[in-house]
């Protein structure tokens, strides 16, 4: 496989695509939101259970490409237990990573497992796939009722 392609589809991403974590309906969400990528028809529903500004639980449903599914799966694993402020900071870092704004030799320590998405920056059309879950989660946090789109 081509190197650039291998960077995009890392084993962790393929694994999360195949067996997504927290892929379930939540019975008692405090917030939820729909996300939609009109480019490819991907739809995503994010459920949040937030208590005293802490993400107690998060899950998702929907369909999408490997990048968007793995991104949603990894996001849910990463943000559980974090405060809203920490999550917003993490999103900022993640967005900078996939849009190539962290430079050539980025410090990935704060991003943890999310570092596997570094390859996305070489594929500008796929940035939306990687960030759909995050935008939708942010909209759920704000309790926005309108559907999020990546356009």
């Amino acid at each position, binding site marked *: *496989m081509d190197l650039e392609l291998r960077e995009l589809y890392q084993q962790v991403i393929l694994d999360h695509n*195949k067996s997504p974590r927290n892929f379930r309906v939540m019975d008692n969400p405090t917030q939820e939101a729909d996300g939609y990528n009109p480019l*490819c*028809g991907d739809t995503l529903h994010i459920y949040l259970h937030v208590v005293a500004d802490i993400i107690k639980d998060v899950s998702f449903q929907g369909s*999408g490409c490997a990048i968007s599914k793995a991104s949603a799966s990894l996001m849910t694993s990463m943000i559980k237990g974090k405060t809203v402020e920490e999550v917003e900071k993490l999103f900022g870092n993640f967005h900078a990573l996939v849009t190539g704004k962290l430079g050539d030799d980025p410090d990935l320590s704060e991003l943890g497992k999310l570092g596997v998405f570094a390859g996305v920056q070489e594929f500008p059309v796929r940035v939306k796939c990687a960030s759909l879950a995050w935008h939708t989660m942010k909209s759920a946090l704000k309790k926005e009722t309108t559907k999020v789109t990546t356009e």
Partner: protein
Amino acid sequence: MSSKEIISVIPNSTLYDVEKIRNDFPILQTKVHGKQLIYLDNAATSQKPISVIKKTQEYYSSMNSNIHRGVHALSQVSTEAYESARIKVKSFINALGKNEIIFTRGTTESINLVTQSYGRANFQEGDEVIISQMEHHSNIVPWQMICEEKGAKLKVIPINDEGEIIFEEFEKLITHKTKFISVVYVSNSLGTVNPVKNIIDLAHQNNIPVLLDAAQAVHHTPIDVQELDCDFLVFSGHKMYGPTGIGILYGKINLLESMPPFQGGGDMIETVTFERTTYNELPYKFEAGTPNIAGAIGLGEAIDYISQVGLENIALHEKYLLDYATEAVADIPGLKIIGTAKEKVSVLSFVLDDVHPHDIGTFLDFEGVAIRTGHHCTQPVMDRYNIPATSRASFAMYNTKEEINTLVNGLRKIIEVFG
């Protein structure tokens, strides 16, 4: 069987050398990610032969001048070239007269011209318009807009699992309120060729005009508008080996005569005063402003190219490619073809278990293979099959069996990675 052997099934009188044709398309020499480009996204737009590229260049380097009314030499040259392109289009679809050929920006603008001019002048509250479930968004949204404006109702002919119009359902939809039927000749996302002659005949028995969206048909099958007896026919230049930004609206002369102008401006007028303006005769009444002159001339050249190769030959070659590809993907585990109509053009739309079309598209791109992934501007078709998107390979006159082999091998590699 090599791609050259394909030719052996075609009679000698219509010999077709695919390598010779490929040499006419400079872009096919392009490399993508270090691999030879394999262009299988022809339903989105086709590549252009060198004759079309050269003609467009020639227009700008030796003919460029605004058409009509100019008394100087260049204006006459460009006017003649533009109008001779119109005559080529007229002959290509066998229209009765050149006044029935309107140059537009493309299929989308042609449909909007009909909805905004014919629809606005003729539709009333309670009227009904019929389209099909397999329409491109460009043959849905303009009708929705005019129906909403007029208080008319849009009715939709359903399709079966194979992707064919259910004709009995169509018959049931026609009522005394039906004022217009607009259907696609060939589906861009399924490849289905619709029984347009039967649709037109039934519509005319009920005195209902019919528009055919032939954007995916004109370069695959010979069209005779007089034989079909369609009232309007629309298509784009860029899908038939011509330039982008140029398209055609064919309309029966009596209908076009009765319709008010679509846009106002220069060239579409006869006389203008602040009190009253009278409109120019057909086809100029519908061509306000300076048109895409180079585009029209390029489209004329594309028609010449298609005629040289022969539409029947192209159709035979593409049918071979479609049959070959359909068979080649049949034993790929988890692959399902979307659109299995009996009458199809060379469009192969499919889904693969557990692999999203976008991932397929990205992987194939690294093999040099360009396909389209997504809803193909036919979201209602995706909803019909309960899928978000498909992968679509669409073949043109210059594609080969070897290219399809690369596509199939690529798909097998993808399954290995995602399996």
